[in-house]
């Protein structure tokens, strides 16, 4: 493997890379810890606008934790987060977050359209009226993910893939510039995966930044422009074309990926 442009940061302890001013989301020295052990250690990252980035790494590598800590959903021990060059608190309206589907109770008494309207809460505030125009917007977001006919369904009656699409519709309703998705393709059917990737690619075409925690290494090359590889520390970061290769995968997964498996991914030069 000879890939000169790869950034290998596995050795750690390097000086923090300067935050890219054009990045939609940039992290510097982000550290999160559950108890004694750090889950994410001193991670720098820059996720560009107008591109799709996959965050990949083994289970327990801190992928979801990285997103949650960036958003302030879980507290960070140290580190700086900036969104479009601003402190996150001032630009929350420009961020849409899609949590893991399994993180909520789908038995909650509410309907599909109601969940999508939650994406509008920031705009309407605590007591603002949810006007017909806003409801129409929520419906059009449902339509974008092919779920308009399910608007009045109870959410517990949906399949896993349908639930994921409803979550994506809620994020669309937020009309954000930065989309952070935690495993949007986990456990969904092929039709849903297609529908989601089409929406995400449309967002990218509109110039939005899309960042996904992603599990399926086989689809990284097809779906994403960039890859961010993490195993507690940042391992590598860059365009899929140059960064996503056997060397970085081995470094990220600690040799847990069999060589044959890596070959099957048909990486880099072969493609």
């Amino acid at each position, binding site marked *: 493997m000879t890939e000169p442009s790869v950034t290998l940061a596995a050795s750690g302890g390097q000086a923090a890379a300067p935050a890219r001013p054009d990045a939609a989301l940039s992290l510097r020295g982000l550290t999160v810890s559950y108890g004694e052990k750090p889950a994410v250690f001193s991670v720098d990252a820059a996720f560009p606008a107008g591109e799709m980035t996959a965050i990949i790494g083994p289970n327990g590598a801190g992928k979801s934790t990285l997103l949650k800590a960036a958003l302030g959903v879980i507290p960070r021990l140290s580190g700086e987060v900036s969104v479009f060059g601003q402190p996150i608190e001032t630009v929350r309206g420009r961020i849409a977050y899609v*949590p893991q589907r*399994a993180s*909520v109770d*789908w038995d909650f*008494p*509410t309907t599909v359209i109601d969940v999508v309207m939650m994406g509008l809460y920031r705009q*309407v505030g605590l007591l603002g009226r949810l006007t017909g125009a806003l409801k129409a917007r929520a419906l059009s977001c449902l339509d974008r993910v092919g779920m308009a006919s399910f608007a009045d369904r109870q959410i517990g009656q949906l399949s896993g893939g349908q639930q994921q699409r409803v979550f994506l519709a809620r994020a669309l309703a937020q009309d954000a510039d930065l989309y952070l998705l935690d495993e949007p393709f986990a456990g969904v059917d092929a039709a849903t995966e297609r529908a989601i990737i089409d929406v995400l690619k449309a967002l990218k075409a509109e110039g939005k930044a899309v960042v996904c925690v992603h599990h399926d290494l086989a689809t990284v090359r097809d779906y994403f422009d960039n890859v961010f590889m993490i195993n507690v520390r940042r391992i590598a970061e860059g365009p899929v074309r140059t960064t996503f290769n056997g060397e970085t995968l081995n470094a990220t997964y600690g040799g847990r990926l069999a060589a044959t498996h890596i070959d099957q991914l048909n990486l880099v030069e072969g493609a």
Partner: protein
Amino acid sequence: MGSEFVMFSLTPMLIGVLASVACALPGNFLILRRQALIGDAISHVVLPGIVVAFLLTGVVAAIPMLLGAAGAAVVAVVLIEAIKRLGRIEPGAAMGVTFTTLFAGGVLLLEQSDTSSVHLDVEHALMGNLESLVWLRATDWSSLFDPWALAGVPEELPRIAVVCAGVILLTLVFWRWLKISTFDEGFAQALGLPVGMIGMGLVITAAVAAVAAFDAVGSIIVIAMFICPPAAARMMTNGLERQVWWSVLFAVVAAVLGYVLAGYGPLWLGGDNAVSAAGMIATVSGVILALACAFGPHRARVGARAEA
């Protein structure tokens, strides 16, 4: 059903209704957050708080007792959080440990102290004294417009009315925050909502409702009302708004029906004495829950949590 009803039944019934509604409203969110036991915990820890307040002041007066109860509730909430975090114990167990210990401590304190001269005992703590909250100045329905008679309503009535109104107002104002942070806490946090404050505010509201209701009707109703009406309501509908309306309806029905059954039921059956109104109200709420379990249109999904 004339003057006798106004004098002996109207005020206890109203107090029962207001206490039930004040507890049922936050109960809806506590159940959906799987924190239903917190109402139970609070109503138990109120006892030591009240006993300590009595020991410190030497009088059975409303304000010190409410302060004592509120203080104990805060201590309990902090203890539960501490046990949960430090001991890494599941929330239900942390609550169970806290409230049984504090309640037992309250019973011991009560036995050791000289409270025999005052109306403060374990039975009172459990069942309250709803029947005794009569409106002696009332003569008939016209007393509702008589300032002198109105000034003589039991002091528990305005107190629980204010608390109930406050709970309703808070539920309305913070509806969206409560709904979204209960359904999807991570998303609510990403929106920038003060999720921790919302959760704490809900528990404090529940605590205030529990303390005010405890004062009037004892802990049995409090425990029942936090859980039974909302749980039954969940089985009637798949919408949160409608669930809350159902829970209020069930709370009112339980309070009114329970009071009437306790007062007149035994007589109808040929018995001599009425039974505890608080006990009967709680029982009726349990029966409503059982009926909802058996016949509610949306009972199938309750408890059937998505395997994840």
